[in-house]
């Protein structure tokens, strides 16, 4: 059991180190977040599993299961929330980025996601956004 938990600890530490290298080396915010979130969740998952294997006790196992479920539920939510707010702030993309599929679909002012087929460039424009809001539409008749 001790050997197995030692191996799991080393693997987890390696993944956490990879996450840190990723957060330093990746060129833009979204890639950094990709590296940090996924690798670090896996690394901590391995480490907590090592604790569960080492102690070999039912109450500890339940606690380990709790931490694992909690981490795997919250890490993607937290990453999504940061990515969303960073996109609104206008975090710069990498210079060699090929495509930004969200471009033109988000209303920059009201933060509403439009999922219609045609992305219009003028949605980034604030004046065009205001022209489309229901309050500003002229009343016919």
């Amino acid at each position, binding site marked *: 059991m001790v*050997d197995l938990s030692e191996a799991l600890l080393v693997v987890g*530490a*390696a993944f*956490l*180190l990879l*996450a840190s290298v990723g957060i330093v080396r990746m060129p833009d915010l979204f890639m950094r977040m990709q590296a940090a979130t996924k690798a*670090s969740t896996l690394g901590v998952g391995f480490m907590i599993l090592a604790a569960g294997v080492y102690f070999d006790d039912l109450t500890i196992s339940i606690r380990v299961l709790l931490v694992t479920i909690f981490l795997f539920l919250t890490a993607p*939510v937290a990453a999504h*929330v940061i990515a969303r*707010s960073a996109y609104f702030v206008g975090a710069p993309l990498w210079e060699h980025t090929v495509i930004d599929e969200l471009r033109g679909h988000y209303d920059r002012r009201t933060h509403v996601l439009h999922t219609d087929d045609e992305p219009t460039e003028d949605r980034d424009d604030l004046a065009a956004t205001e022209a489309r809001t229901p309050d500003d539409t002229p009343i016919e008749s």
Partner: protein
Amino acid sequence: MTAGEFAAGSFVNNLVFAVLLVAMYLAFMRLVRGPTLPDRVVALELITTLTVGIIVVYTISSNQPVFLDAAIVVALVSFLGTVAFAQYVERRARDG
């Protein structure tokens, strides 16, 4: 890797702690350098995750499973802090 107790000063224990320390240093570099506020939030989240890892290693090497509760609390506070930071960043962008 001999069978028996996972001693506090054993090779694997020191190795894992050293690796986590290097990882913590790299994440801290991004926290200091990070050009935008979301960069720093991401770095802070990684640092708290590394803290959870260090707590787990210490739990094993000191043979005190009580410390796992601290890991749970740190993970929880980290999640709440990240969501709060994101709300703050988004509201600041909206209000201009």
